[in-house]
């Protein structure tokens, strides 16, 4: 049911393979596997011969002409912004002013007292009534029954104002994303060329670490909600664009032909046929955009964005595990609430479209009464303190905070000797050798090896992307760091895939396991990484391994869900046939279910890698060094702005490279007939 952040939608997932297990792809995959092993052997030999030469290592404070050039560009933007000489930049400032003023008006309505009034215009009772009305009207009473307790929990956890602020920021970003995003999606669906043009832009928007544009955005849009909204837009808009385009492309040809024969214009067709038919998909896209917007809450708080991100960072800064956790839980509740409501609204929209009417007289009466009730609540909330200020009791936040703090103290004392051993073994025997191979080989050896692997796995198209990306990475001057980061990401992705296959198969085979695990995965996906970063840090200390664990925790839920859905989608007939043939459980999993869910596993690997890559910067904050650290340095130190930009761009190139290799590889593996 839920679409809680499914794949990035970088590429549409390949259709589940419904044909029975064939021998050809197996042999093909085996051949490719052998070729990759061959490459690795040659690579190791070359590494042994030329180790530590031509590694393009760069010192921590070293500057290069590329960094200088990037820094000058950044300074130019800043000067243009302060002098007001550039029309484009002035336009950005103008937009920022509008956003800021609308935002501060909304805040004065819901969360911030505006002098001389001592409290906001509408307090908790009015806000909840309004939310309930919207939920009821758009998605029905079941959703209302979900929304009201969620809103109450924000207050009970002690973060009423922050929660509503975050909702406002998210709402803003989502509305603007949809306004432009759906239009762009329509264009993409109808024009191949436009689609080809926009796709790389969307790739960059989704893989560029947000720390890279924190600084430029605070210059362009000022320090305030506008910059936060714009930042959120960059990351949150692509899903709705991509999914809208995907949904429109999926509208069936015969229907279009049939309606075209009635002589409609293109615009009529779009409005009357295509958009209504793709409605549910588009709503799923909006839902994804909303989840992406929420996930920016913590990062946006670095430039003073109002919302729940601030208490999360406060907890981090003050070394208070509990504070971060409670605020993080509020974010999870908000995410689940928005996700479920949106899904329900999408379902209802489809039902309404099918029924062709807006519901019977009962619904009209119900809506009318609910509207009156909301007005009463708004009035009360405007006029009386008790209905405006959220009561301080009952307080669930404090006990929860204390419990988590106690848990943190327990972690600090009891386990660290065991965990140190795990960290040491994993680093010495897992991470270090692979990193040495990638980063200590001469750059041309590593590049050649990556290229050949790209060719074997992904074919010609993958080679082209890889050449472009590798050239870019070399040119930006952070080759060695890029290879360190790539190593950590690859190792983490392997862990993610193993977890995804094990847990995904368990979930796919047993409904009970699925029901038990899914809420945990939902929470893991929406909990801000900063929340579990500190416990991981306590366990494993500041190092690359810790960063990798954090990346795995972040990426695993998505991958597990993908595999689980793939295993479940295997047709019952096939399973039955295999059972009749007398296959054991193990045979069933390895010979039937996993091979048939192959495309899902490949997609899980692809998404896992991209999610791990998204954690690189946060990893830099707990000892991973390399590119993540460079990006944060660029944000923190005026002299290193250029280095930060270069590192951010390198991460984008790495992301696009691994995405293309795995995507084209997955396509080839799924359609073996194409290139034998």
């Amino acid at each position, binding site marked *: 049911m839920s679409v809680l952040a499914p794949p990035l939608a970088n590429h549409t997932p390949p259709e589940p393979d419904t044909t029975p297990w064939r021998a050809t792809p197996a042999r093909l995959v085996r051949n490719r596997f052998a070729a990759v092993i061959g490459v690795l052997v040659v690579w190791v030999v070359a590494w042994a011969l030329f180790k530590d030469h031509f590694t393009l290592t760069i010192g921590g*404070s070293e500057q290069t002409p590329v960094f200088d050039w990037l820094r000058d560009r950044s300074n130019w933007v800043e000067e243009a912004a*302060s002098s007001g000489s550039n029309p484009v930049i002035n336009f950005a400032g103008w937009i920022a002013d509008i956003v800021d003023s609308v935002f501060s008006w909304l805040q004065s309505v819901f969360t911030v007292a505006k*002098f*001389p009034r*001592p*409290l906001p215009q509408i307090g908790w009772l009015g806000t909840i009534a309004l939310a309930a009305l919207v939920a009821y009207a758009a998605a029905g*009473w079941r959703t209302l029954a979900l929304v009201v307790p969620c809103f109450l929990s924000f207050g009970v956890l002690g973060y009423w104002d922050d929660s509503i602020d975050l909702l406002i920021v998210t709402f803003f970003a989502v509305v603007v994303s949809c306004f432009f995003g759906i239009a762009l999606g329509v264009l993409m669906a109808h024009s191949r060329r436009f689609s080809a043009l926009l796709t790389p832009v969307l790739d960059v928007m989704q893989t560029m670490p947000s720390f890279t544009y*924190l*600084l430029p955005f*605070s*210059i362009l849009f*000022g*320090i*305030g909600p506008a910059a936060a909204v714009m930042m959120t837009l960059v990351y949150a808009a692509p899903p709705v664009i991509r999914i809208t385009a995907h949904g429109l492309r999926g509208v069936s040809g015969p229907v279009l032909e049939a309606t075209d024969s009635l002589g409609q214009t293109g615009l009529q067709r779009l409005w009357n046929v295509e958009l209504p038919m793709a409605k549910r998909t588009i709503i799923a896209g909006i839902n994804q955009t909303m989840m992406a917007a929420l996930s920016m809450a913590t990062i946006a708080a*670095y430039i*003073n964005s109002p919302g729940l991100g601030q208490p999360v960072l406060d907890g*981090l*800064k*003050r*070394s*208070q595990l509990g504070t971060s956790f409670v605020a993080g839980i509020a974010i999870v509740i908000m995410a689940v609430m928005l996700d479920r409501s949106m899904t329900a609204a999408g379902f209802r929209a489809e039902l309404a479209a099918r029924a062709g009417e807006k519901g019977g007289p*009962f619904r009209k*009466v*119900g809506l009318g*009464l609910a509207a009156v*009730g909301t007005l009463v*609540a708004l009035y*009360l909330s*405007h*006029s*009386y*303190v*008790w209905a*405006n200020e959220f009561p301080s009791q009952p307080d669930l936040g404090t006990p929860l*905070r204390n419990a988590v703090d106690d848990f943190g103290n327990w972690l*600090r*004392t009891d386990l*660290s*000797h065991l965990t140190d051993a795990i*960290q040491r073994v994993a*680093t*010495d025997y897992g991470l*270090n050798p692979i990193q040495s191979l990638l980063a200590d080989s001469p750059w041309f050896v590593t590049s050649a090896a990556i290229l050949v692997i790209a060719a074997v796995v992904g074919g010609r198209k993958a080679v082209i992307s890889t050449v472009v990306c590798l050239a870019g990475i070399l040119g930006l001057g952070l080759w060695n760091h890029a290879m360190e980061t790539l190593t950590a990401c690859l190792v983490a992705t392997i862990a993610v895939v193993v977890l995804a296959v094990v847990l995904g198969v368990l979930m796919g085979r047993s409904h009970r396991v699925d029901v038990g695990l899914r809420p945990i995965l939902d929470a893991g996906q929406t909990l801000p990484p900063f929340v579990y970063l*500190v416990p991981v*840090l*306590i366990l494993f*200390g*500041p*190092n690359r391994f810790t960063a990798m664990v954090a990346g795995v925790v972040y990426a695993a839920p998505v991958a597990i869900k993908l595999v689980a859905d793939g295993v479940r989608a295997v047709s019952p007939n096939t399973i039955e046939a295999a059972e009749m043939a007398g296959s054991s459980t193990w045979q069933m999993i390895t010979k039937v279910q996993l091979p048939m869910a192959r495309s899902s596993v490949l997609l899980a690997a692809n998404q896992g890698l991209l999610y791990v890559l998204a954690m690189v910067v946060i990893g830099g*904050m*707990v*000892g991973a*060094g390399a590119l*993540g650290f460079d990006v*944060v*340095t660029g944000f*923190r*130190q*005026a002299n*290193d702005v250029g280095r930060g930009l270069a590192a951010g761009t390198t991460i984008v190139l790495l992301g696009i490279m691994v995405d293309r290799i795995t995507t084209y590889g997955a396509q080839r593996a799924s359609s073996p007939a194409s290139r034998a």
Partner: protein
Amino acid sequence: MEHKRPRIVAAALAGLGLAVSLTACGGGSIQDAQTGSGDKKCGDLNVAVNPWVGYEADAHVLGYVAKTRLGCNVNYKDLDEQVSWKGFGSGEVDVVVENWGHPELQKKYMADKGGDGSAVDFGSTGNKGVIGWFVPPWMAKKYPDITDWKNLNKYSSLFKTTESGSKGTLYDGDPGFVTNDEALVTNLKLNYKVVYAGSETALIEAFRDAEKNKKPMLGYFYEPQWFLSEVPLVKVDLPKYTDGCDADAAKVACDYPVYDLNKVVAKKFADSKSPAVDLVKNFTWTNDDQNVVAKYISQDQMDPEDAAKKWVDAHKDEVDAWVKG
């Protein structure tokens, strides 16, 4: 199911109606409430809050006094140093309360350093910033001579980690911190590798673990810092700082200078008639003062506003001096 809906709503309405009639006689209407800040002469005061607890302590004490004594409308803005300084020009930030040097930002924004003149130095906070290399107390006790840098090589194998290969690990913190450590390690010929823990949180957790579980650790740290009251880290003596010994960043082979932490304000704010200008100028206190308030905030988990109030209420004389000048 469909026909139940109006009934539920009706019940809810009835409940609300009851609530209305109950509160109608109960009072508590919002118009009766009073605001705290009456005097509006001060207007807005935008205080940047840089991301460390000591800074928060300064910002909230200053803000609390500005609000309660001068009636300012104080806006706290959670920002990084670099972004805060950029905010001076646009009027989004009035005050940076605790500045650690930052010659590169001075060069960009202070008129006498060749910048655009949007930032003005407003004098010392009275806090002395000490940067250096620290070991957990158990190590200083067990290896008394470790606090001399000359002996560091002798102990380097103790500090070996998975991140430093055959060398010892010297942990550095947040990339925003002032550091010469890579140059120091090279120039003092130390058998160590600088490993970036990456954030203050990471450093603190590592030191906490090192002391609790008696693990060796050498790391960059600084005071004033509330954490030192939890774990009194011991400083390692580097070659003495002399004027200008750190002039060439690549050749540094001496300790960090003692930073005179200062306040920096926006030129626009400095030229304004706001009564808060004098308050900011006069604001000074000691490292111990800051540590106390920072401890209230971090360890005692007090709201920064309450922590500030607690300190201000106990230090009426000092606060009077700031306000009166």
